């Protein structure tokens, strides 16, 4: 029962969720709403486990004085201050929204802004024309980038009596070969997702339970 119980439970709930998609009638729609509500409850309980894990992780680092343990002190102090502010003053006014506006939000924006520099460094490494594929990638990348800036409109050439601009070529690259490849990947992903879901429903794949198949 210890091994088959979770598999049976997963199969029953999985089949209910599968059937409700095709049978929009009360027994299945009610079950669907119930499962979504239970999911929120399970998430709330798992969040408690997550917080305990967080405190334990940083507590061990402080106790062991491992490299960078000062950051763990900052993490725990920050956690205590924000939770304390939320409990004492609520989440609408006071310290809780202040922490979010003045500390968390700017820090998140800072991390996001690093992307600009990382895109440049990754592109510099990836767009070297050492092979035919890399050269094609470089050419396509340059055309698409130029097509996205105002100066691209002024870069054009004539083919017969047609004027072809860089933005037009850029749009064609994105709408035809790029979209074709994307759709191919999405078809494969869709089939893979369906196969994985079926494997879990039928109990073939059990690694997520910590058991071999």
């Amino acid at each position, binding site marked *: 029962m210890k091994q088959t119980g979770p598999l049976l439970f997963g199969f029953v709930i999985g089949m209910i969720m599968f059937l409700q998609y095709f049978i929009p009638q009360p027994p299945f729609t009610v079950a669907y709403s119930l499962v979504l509500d239970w999911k929120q409850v399970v998430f709330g309980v798992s969040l408690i486990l997550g*917080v305990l894990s967080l405190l334990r992780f940083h507590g061990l680092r402080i106790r062991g004085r491992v490299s960078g343990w000062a950051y763990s002190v900052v993490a725990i102090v920050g956690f205590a201050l924000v939770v304390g502010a939320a409990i004492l003053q609520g989440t609408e006014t006071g310290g809780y929204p202040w922490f979010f506006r003045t500390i968390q939000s700017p820090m998140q924006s800072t991390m996001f802004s690093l992307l600009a520099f990382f895109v440049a460094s*990754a592109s510099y490494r990836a767009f070297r024309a050492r092979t035919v594929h890399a050269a094609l990638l470089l050419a396509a990348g340059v055309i698409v980038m130029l097509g996205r800036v105002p100066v691209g409109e002024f870069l054009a050439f004539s083919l017969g009596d047609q004027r072809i601009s860089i933005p037009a070529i850029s749009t064609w690259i994105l709408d035809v070969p790029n979209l074709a490849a994307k759709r191919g990947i999405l*078809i494969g992903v869709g089939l893979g997702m*369906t196969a994985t879901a079926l494997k*879990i429903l039928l109990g073939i794949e059990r*690694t*997520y*339970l910590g058991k*071999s198949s």
Partner: protein
Amino acid sequence: MIPFPAWLDTARLAELVTALSFGTLVVYFVRRARSGVDIQIRRIPGLEAVEEAVGRATEMGRPILYCPGLDSMDEVATVASMNVLGQVARRVAEYETPILVPNRDPFVMTVAQQVVREAYAAAGRPDLYREGDVYYSTYSQFGYAANVCGTMMRTKPATNFYIGKFYAESLVMTETGNATGAIQIAGTDSDAQLPFFICSCDYTLIGEELYAGSAYLSREPLLLGTLRAQDMAKVAAIAILLLGSLLAAAGAFDSRAYLPG
């Protein structure tokens, strides 16, 4: 009493037929695999490199970092990531190499702890499992990225795995991993993040290769059977696409009527 036709949403009939057909294919190939038929699959470089990557970490005496993505267990990519984590953790346990698994979702953390613990137990080394190595980081997207980057800069893992569902933070983590000199293996079904992974990682599992990870690494016949069913379904999809394209080109129907908008 609701009449029988009203029980079924006929607008989704095509999806039901497709799902049942695919399910029949899966059952057929699983039965074939059970009967002992040898199923061959093509080489996937990213998965072939797992053994080498774990060995490299062991030789260098540095840990392995495994990021299971940002979404919860209701995302199929995260389930696939847990399946791959089980296989990676088994190898890690055999090589006695530390593995760090920072999690953004607390539910994924509990699953990952169970998976890694069982992997160590299956390898006969339950004493090596340390609960603090599979931990909850933060639910904030870029807070998680900052935590992973900080971990990489301090512990200098020899191998980084990014397997699951990722968003804008992916390039921040992979570029930081590059700066530490780690070998990086990524796998995601997010088509928007694939270009970033391909540019910054040594190996990338593209789309369905992520879902093939568990079958490829374990070589379990039943799992390989489902892979074959996937491939057959893809062949059928390609055939239908080609047939539809030829019919549309021949003017058998007005394809513009099926365009969105």
